[in-house]
């Protein structure tokens, strides 16, 4: 049995142009053997969710450094739910104070990563989540 590759959409929602983190993380996930789709900049939540469904991804990882995380994460989360894609893990990182991370996790967003996190932490987290939640889905 060949283990299926984990599919991740790395997204930059909103008007924020800071893509250093998104690109570094996308490259690290790819180097760790995942299939990575990068949306490019200035995407609306609708565009991100549409791309996630079209690409049938396991994980949506958003990078937000604009301070708009309390608007954009819930909007993507709700759109995923509306589209029946609540089996998709929504995670991400950026300039996000820890209290906001906690609030977002209470709403159903996965773990969020702040500045200085090694990319290996993000890789390990996604792998672990996938093994627990999705690994058996597409077998047979």
């Amino acid at each position: 049995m060949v283990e299926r590759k984990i599919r991740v959409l790395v997204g930059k929602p909103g008007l924020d142009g800071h893509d250093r983190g998104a690109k570094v993380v996308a490259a690290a996930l790819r180097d760790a053997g995942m299939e990575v789709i990068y949306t490019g900049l200035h995407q609306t939540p609708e565009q991100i969710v549409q791309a996630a469904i079209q690409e049938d991804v396991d994980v949506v990882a958003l990078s937000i450094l604009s301070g708009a995380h309390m608007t954009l994460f819930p909007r993507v989360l709700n759109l995923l739910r509306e589209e029946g894609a609540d089996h998709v893990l929504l995670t991400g990182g950026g300039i996000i104070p820890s209290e906001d991370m906690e609030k977002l996790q209470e709403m159903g967003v996965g773990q969020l990563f702040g500045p200085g996190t090694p990319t290996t932490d993000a890789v390990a987290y996604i792998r672990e989540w996938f093994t627990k939640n999705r690994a058996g889905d597409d077998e047979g």
Partner: protein
Amino acid sequence: MGEEKKRPSIDELSAENQGLKAELEKLRRERAAWLGKYGSVPKRDEVLFDTLSGCEVQPLYTPLDIGTYDPAYADKLGFPGEYPFTRGPYTTMYRTRLWTMRQFSGFGTSEETNQRYKYLLDHGQTGLSVAFDFPTLMGYDSDDRRSEGEVGVCGVAISSLADMETLFDGIPLKDVSVSMTINGPAMMLYCFLLATAEKQGVDIREFRGTIQNDILKEYMAQHAWIFPPEPALKIIADIFEWSSVNAPKFNTISISGYHIREAGSTALQELAFTLKNGFTYVEKGIKRGLDVNEFAPRLSFFWDVHNDFFEEIAKFRAARRIWARHMKEIYGAKDPDSWRLRTHAQTAGVSLMAQQPENNITRVAYQGLAAVLGGTQSLHTNALDETLALPTEKAVRIALRTQQILAYETGVPSTIDPLAGSYYVEWLTDQMEEGAERIFAEIDEMGGVVKGIEDGYFQGQIALSAERFQHEVETNRRIIVGVNDFTGGNEDLSIDLLRIGPEIEEKQRQRLADLRERRDQAEVDGALERLAEAARNDENLMEPVLDAVRAYATLGEIRHALEKIYGRFREPVFF
């Protein structure tokens, strides 16, 4: 020690070598002339220029002061304020005038930011620098659907002349110079500022300030654009042309390495890409038929100052020398003001760490010192909490105090370019210059800057450098305190953060709704129609935009009118 082992003096050596003797005499004459002219210039009031031990510090030191002679001195270093400007863009530097302490700042609506500006000015800040929110940076009004959740969050929301008037309410634009980080919609925001200054009674011919207006690095790194490169460059040439006649003291562009660096480039890439962008603007101006001696003196620069202390200093010095040489030798500029590279600097935001954030004060202090040793004209020092949120008042005050300690306690500004002649710093400066020339040649080979942007060359190079750095950190080959070593104390995250609540967006939308209600709609429509007509006819757009702004047309409306003609830039995704 025996007399026979004594090192010969340079005078003894030069007695045997007529060439050396002549050069030495020339340097002596030049130094005497320089000191004669500038040695007794008015000093800053009441400032002591002696060491704490009481030793008098001269404004300038050269190889003659330690009895050595460097044959490359005249060609590579020379004197401050003189070609090739390696030792500084101005003759007397901080002896006469300290750098401008200019903290980049903005949040909420124009009312909140106006209060913050007054706070900063009250605490000794000497210039203002406007940080706009993302909708403004992208040319969207605060009530646009795309702006939701971002209004006033990352900077101040400015959608019209009315907001700009509030921003500088009670702040005399005649006396306080303003710098605005704005690029895609630079013309609109510049016109908001000009119209505000007009209303304050400022003579625009004497008006000083800066707009960033550097669109090339937006495509490379910062990504706040509106139009595709060609119309965007046309608009920049319009700004140069109009300002050279109407606002000749305004800095119409600040060619910026900062964002290239923050996006992941090395110091050398920052230097080379930015100067190459600068040359591209110079070529655009010349192609428009402008006299290089007229517009080049209004070009200014903006560098990042990162952690590698000496490399940063070398970068500043090399930048001045490269710019001077190219402007004189390649672009044929005759006016020394066209050779002189003046710069703003900001400490590296990307070097701030969320772990033990108080340590950021120390990082910023070293970086600020490097900028001053590099000879910057103005400086922003980051606040310790900016890796988590926009800074609190207290954090901003500490950042400003860091500059004041540097300016008033360390003695560093007492003498000009104090690291000149250091083997390491001079070697690094040469390395930076040679490396930049190699990158220029590479860019020329691929067909220039715009072609490189279209092909993703710059974006790719920057991303590769970012990945390499991250890899070096993750393999512990580069140590970052609190991140991959010395992590004791990381659990303590108890610092106060500035919060921008959703009520700000509501308030700003209301301000805009009120404006749309009270302005003369027919006047706005007419001005926007004339603007579109001017764009279709490829006329200079400054006057039509100014007219639309004076009628209180909004940022988004002006953007929309021009976008219909120029289209919108869509980045090819390189990954």
